[in-house]
């Protein structure tokens, strides 16, 4: 099933909070995973994998580098 942008953002925020200990409210569309949320490459793969399970989508490894901001990820997942 397709998810709305709001649903994906909320789900991603939960996943990021769980992986990093950050407050879910800090996970906003314009935030950069690396520069703003201090998420390294391995944590990013964990977040992507958990997002795949949560939203029942597949995100190829080669596409992960293009997901710079939270908004990039939300947009990617909602368009799948």
């Amino acid at each position, binding site marked *: 099933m397709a998810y709305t942008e709001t649903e994906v953002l909320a789900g991603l925020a939960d996943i990021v909070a769980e992986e990093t200990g950050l407050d879910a409210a800090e996970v906003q569309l314009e935030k950069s995973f690396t520069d703003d949320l201090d998420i390294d490459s391995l944590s990013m793969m*964990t977040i*992507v994998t958990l997002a795949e399970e949560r939203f029942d989508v597949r995100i190829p*490894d080669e596409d992960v580098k293009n997901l710079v901001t939270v908004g990039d990820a939300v947009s990617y997942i909602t368009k799948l």
Partner: protein
Amino acid sequence: MTQLTTSTGPAFSRIVALGTARGENVVSNDEIAGPIDSSDEWIRQRTGIVSRVRANPETTVIDLAERASREAIERAGIDASEIDTVILSTITYPHITPGGAPVLADRLGASPAAAWDISAACAGYCYAIGQADALVRSGQSKYVLVVGAEKMSDWIDPTDRSISFLLGDGAGAVIIGASQTPAIGPTIWGSEGSGAELIRQTSSWTEIREDESLAFPTLVQEGQSVFKWASFKLAPVAREAIEKAGLTPADIDAFIPHQANMRIIDQMVRQIGLPDSVVIARDIADSGNTSAASIPLATERLYRDGQVKAGDVALQIGFGAGLVYAAQVVVLP
């Protein structure tokens, strides 16, 4: 009508004894951080490695294998001549042929034991345990010497940021023999050749022969993809190994995964759903990634630290280049 006689063997096999050998030199993160423009903090945070152990230049992979094997043979209380099968798992023996196992068997005084190498990278130790278990229970072999031995430091590029800085040298050996009780569970193993490029030799030997600009080959990996595969895809394999052994996660005393990266180990523990009571092998912090040697080396470390004892039940899982993986539950010797 002519009828063949086939071999029959004991109902069960076990690990009789363990021996190990580590490289002679402790190499700190600071010593290797420069050429990869990194730092002790970055390496610890990404890998959990504080230092790795590497062998002297003149030490060969067979030297490491021999040291570990002699210790295992002595602890088993058998004579080397009683070993009828030698399986050497290595990806760092620098000969396409002959294999290292016959050389090792000869050095140990185990000739004319059947002897062969297997190439299953970081899963090789568990692959070899699976082979040895089957050989003993079929009656084909009485005592199998299984050795995981690697001199990874011969195959690294100091400027490589993908895998070289993780790698260490060492060997682990076990004797597998008959048992009165079940002590090696079914091996759950497999491969995913579609991921063959994820951990690889930089160039093949024939490519190097035909292109003089190519450097001596080293190992490289796609670290993020390997992390995702190992951390999340292999938990069902580990759970199946527990289930096929007739156990539940609560029955496991120790989890001894291939020591690839502390972050992978942590995530595997979560994904498998191991209870807090399970001791987790974390030898990677001081030994680095020693490929086929890492599980027996990590086992030895758990004994040394008083975290396991003879009779404890351990879940071990190897995984690596191929991609290949294998897991089984064993009773520790």
